[in-house]
């Protein structure tokens, strides 16, 4: 099913029933996830050691993630029907030990970016030229652990590290001046893009940012 299109994702997502309470969170990430897996990431189900890494830090609402993984051949689409069942590998928060293609187990907020800093450092130490991508939510950015990672990654110029913040404008106290300002002051390259426009997202993802880690704010327009 690796020839799947973006339109196929809606059918895949609709097979996941249950009382998932983060449906909006799931659909807000769908476009960014698809552009990444369809156009940007160097990763296949074989999970080669020099693959790019994608960490879904915002583990809430993983339906879009599961749908994309199914569309790209990492998991059997038939498995989606058992989403949330006791013996299903597909839970409300992804588990890397259960789901092929899932790089980190997430759910508790504020862990993906600090983990990604370590992975980017580890890959660099091993001489493996892979990019590391993390998707977090704008509300998740509140977690202090993210700010330890943002400061460190910027100062040491981890240029293979990329953060996508899906901005649903849901952070309780907001980000005065925009999230970009918070990252830029620490030395990141930062840009805001229309989170529903695939070409704009791809351009933002592919733009060069020598010597600095990269932030792309994917603004969904949801308020």
């Amino acid at each position, binding site marked *: 099913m690796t020839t799947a299109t973006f339109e196929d994702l809606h059918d895949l997502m609709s097979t996941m029933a249950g009382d998932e309470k983060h449906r909006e969170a799931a659909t807000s990430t769908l476009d960014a996830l698809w552009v990444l897996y369809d156009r940007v990431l160097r990763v296949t189900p074989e999970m080669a050691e020099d693959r790019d890494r994608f960490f879904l830090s915002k583990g809430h609402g993983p339906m879009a993630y599961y749908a994309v993984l199914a569309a790209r051949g990492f998991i059997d689409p038939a498995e989606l029907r058992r989403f949330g069942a006791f013996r299903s590998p597909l839970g409300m928060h992804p588990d890397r030990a259960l789901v092929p293609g899932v790089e980190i187990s997430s759910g508790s907020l504020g862990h993906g970016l600090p*983990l990604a800093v370590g992975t980017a450092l580890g890959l660099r130490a091993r001489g493996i030229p892979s990019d590391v991508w993390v998707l977090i939510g704008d509300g998740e950015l509140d977690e202090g652990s993210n700010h*330890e990672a943002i400061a*460190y990654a910027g100062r040491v110029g981890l240029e293979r590290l990329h953060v996508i913040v899906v901005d649903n404008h849901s952070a309780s106290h907001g980000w005065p001046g925009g999230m970009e300002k918070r990252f830029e002051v620490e030395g990141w390259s930062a840009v805001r893009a229309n989170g529903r426009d695939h070409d704009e997202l791809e351009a933002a993802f592919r733009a060069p940012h020598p010597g600095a880690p990269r932030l792309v704010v994917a603004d969904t327009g949801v308020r």
Partner: protein
Amino acid sequence: MAGIMRERFVDVSTQLLDTHDRLAVLTADLTSALFDGARERHPDRVLNFGIREQLLISAAGGLALAGMRPIAHSFAPFLIERPFEQIKLDLNHQAVGAVLVSAGASYDISSSGRTHQSPGDVALLSTLPDWTIDVPGHADEAEAQLREAADGDGLVYLRLSNQSNAHAHGIADGRLHRGFRTLRQGTAAVVIAVGPLADAVLAATEGLDVTVLYAATVRPFDAVALRAAVADQREPAVVLVEPYLAGTSVPEVADALGDLSHRVLGLGVGRDELRNYGSPRQHAIAHGLDSAGLRRAVVGFLGQK
């Protein structure tokens, strides 16, 4: 002897970095300067994160996900208690390994007060599966445990202390003895001495008819050795002497002797906050962990039937 285990840790880690190309040493400022030479030779594998302990642990998890063997170091309260969720989720839950090496123990830094004391670290880690918890009583044991941990791929906590025994009870024939070692044999009770408290326990039990076992590793807990020692006793009675929160390993004794009626006494650092400064020796006395205090407790326990 102050700080000798930590100095050995720096020396041995520095050596290991030269021979293990997947090894990385991570710090959060504390002890970082002692790795300056190693950092010059291995700038990508000697990493100082600044005073960011959550990142210290998460980055260790991320490095392990990338195939590295991370050794993360700080004082015990900042390495274990402060970033405990990162330990639970970014190490255990990610199913990756790491070596955490602490300094300071329960009250080595007694003059700094409660903020720098960590009697609860082993109890906290004991809530998680799959950890090897090493509590060396001598720098030679710490070195052997560190070398073994660096070669492995599991989860290891190495709890260094400024307190030390005169001899490395855990080293036999030049090699690290992993299980409990018998230091003394008797028939009235089994006393388990953990790490740096072994010499105090030997002094406290001088002339008493008890078996003394020595443990430099408390997880996994050597239930086989304990059962064998208890089998030689007139009654199953066990005294645990641990240099951290009293009773931390009592559940392990209960599991090991679950099919036997038995008595157990857990000695260690009390739960109450003392709000005292002073020396580690004064704190040991306050917690009843000096040889006189231990003897009173053991004799009292033996007298209860």
